[in-house]
């Protein structure tokens, strides 16, 4: 097989790379280009696109077209974008608050037990997201696990509800729960490399526990924290299962909006435009991350 390869090193290299290039091209680049093109076309009434160049999809994000064809600034979609950012950010912070102690705990376990703990963290991740999100409806919903005792104790009338479901709170809980392994694992990876004698050195040099934590552990876990935050924030920003099921379709986020444009509203260019905006934000964060990672590499942990 290898012996039959052509002699030219350039040809040989491209042949070796071909499978990867084909997969990236066919399954990633082409769909993205299609989306980018669609976002600049006109919508057909019942889905599909009309091949006329138009920026109307992007205009629609900011403006509402009145009956007299004039444009009026409309904050509706901006509110959805803002809510997406807010909820994704809150979910990210929640993941960090819960995930960091978990990662620290695992990294301090005897080495032979650590893999078991990591496995326990990742098991839920292998279960279908939809199923796991539905579980939260049972917990948060009317007559759910949380409400039932209140109702039983007579604190909640038959028609009353705590209103946990179909709220920003429910979406945040769903996002936090879904993406927490993505926070724990990278933080664990950087804490596991941390030489614990550095913490001893900090204590030896008059650091209280808090100072040792804030001056030594946190800075050294920073690459993991940043990676974890990105890994949680980006999919949270585009999530659609959690806002759809736990927000009841009333609290739209970017992901739900895109899905809605393609399925119900049948406005493909507008859906594509929102997806492009989302993509632009993601790229922005990744560039910032790459910069941070390059700076972190300079201090290289041996």
């Amino acid at each position: 097989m290898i012996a039959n390869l052509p002699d030219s090193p350039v040809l040989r290299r491209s042949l070796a790379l071909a499978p990867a290039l084909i997969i990236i091209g066919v399954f990633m680049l082409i769909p993205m280009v299609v989306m980018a093109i669609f976002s600049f076309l006109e919508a057909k009434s019942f889905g599909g696109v009309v091949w006329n160049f138009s920026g109307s999809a992007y205009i629609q994000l900011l403006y509402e077209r009145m009956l007299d064809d004039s444009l009026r600034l409309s904050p509706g979609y901006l509110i959805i974008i803002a809510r997406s950012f807010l909820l994704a950010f809150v979910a990210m912070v929640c993941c960090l608050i819960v995930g960091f102690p978990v990662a620290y705990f695992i990294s301090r376990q005897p080495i032979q037990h650590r893999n078991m703990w990591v496995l326990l963290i990742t098991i839920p991740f292998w279960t279908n997201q939809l199923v796991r999100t539905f579980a939260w409806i049972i917990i948060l919903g009317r007559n759910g696990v949380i409400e039932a005792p209140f109702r039983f104790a007579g604190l909640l009338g038959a028609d009353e509800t705590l209103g946990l479901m179909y709220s920003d709170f429910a979406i945040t809980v769903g996002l936090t729960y879904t993406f927490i392994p993505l926070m724990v694992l990278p933080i664990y990876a950087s804490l596991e490399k941390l030489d614990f004698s550095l913490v001893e050195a900090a204590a030896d040099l008059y650091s209280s526990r808090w100072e040792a934590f804030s001056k030594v552990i946190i800075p050294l876990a920073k690459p993991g924290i940043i990676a974890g935050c990105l890994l949680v924030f980006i999919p949270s920003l585009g999530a659609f299962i959690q806002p759809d099921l736990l927000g009841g379709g009333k609290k739209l986020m970017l992901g739900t909006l895109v899905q809605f444009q393609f399925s119900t509203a049948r406005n493909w260019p507008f859906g594509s435009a929102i997806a492009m905006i989302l993509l632009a934000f993601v790229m922005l964060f990744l560039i910032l991350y790459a910069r941070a990672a390059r700076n972190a590499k300079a201090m290289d942990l041996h």
Partner: protein
Amino acid sequence: MTNKATSVSPLHPDPVSRPIEEAGPARTAVELDRVGKIYGHGTTAVEALHEISFDIRDNEFFTLLGPSGCGKTTLLRTLAGFEHVTRGVIRLFGQDIVDVPTHKRPVNTVFQHYSLFPHMTVADNVAYGLRRLKKPADEIRGTVDEMLRLVKMERFADRLPAQLSGGQQQRVALARALAPSPKVLLLDEPLSALDLKLRQAMRQELKQIQARTGITFIFVTHDQDEALSMSDRIAVMSEGHLQQVGTPTEIYEHPVNRFVAGFVGDANFIEAEIASPIGAKVTCRTRGGLELQADATKASSGQRDAVLFLRPEKVRLTEPGAGTVNGTVRDIQYLGNSTLMEIDIGEPASVIVRQSGDVNQPACRPGDTVGVVLDPHALQVLAE
């Protein structure tokens, strides 16, 4: 390396005139009173330290010496506060510190693998302890400069630890630990990761820094050369037990037992029984039937069996018949600055002789018969 007379210590402006011994009895820096440490419990319990008691004087370069697993590092870690003692008392300048947490002990550590903070520059590493002590900024700057000059690293203040060699990292670790002016500096095998030449240079330098700063150094090592060359006093440990505390000369010339004699330097041991009343000198009869005179100052009064101890360099060779006993040369090892000879004198263990490159020694080859002089002053009865 540095000439003491010309270098002016920043901490003590005139190091030369500083008396080596303060007037009156030296203060006690560290006092260990029956310190014990047990890991685990029940049947799996391991006793790491057993009833360790000794004093370390202020200003002293004190070394804890022993093979790995002897408890010397555990002892150092209890002084730093990383480990709690199971029993006993540790006093630092008279104050019981057993329950004082690490970050409140006026003691700093130089770690075996340096443990510099990788995300901080050299200057920030050195300033770390001072910042936690809330020293004013200009004082911190001054001390950091002073410390970096002391360890000759002032040109590297803005580097990150990863950009330094092992020896340089070692110097920064030393500066970082010295910067807060601890009452006692703990050094956990700080030279073990360096190569031989660097290690030898650092020995001198450490010793000089100790003399200049006047801080009590407690140095842990398994290297007997290091211990002998640097220390004011040495504590030899084995299996969690303290074996002997003394000056390098005492430890080397007059070890109290077979372990110390064998661990600190090379030693010949001749098993014998005591054949005369024990006085300053004693006559012993060896297994091979030799009658030998030996120094008995370390012997206990009721002792019957004795281990006679003799350093290889204290054995002299002479013409056959002219020595204490005749022996046959078994093996010769040429080491450059000296020659090791293994000589069979009819005892269960043969005698090792170290000859420095002396041209007047009779040249011999394996199989030759030589006279062996066993000097009764150098031959010592070890305590049981």
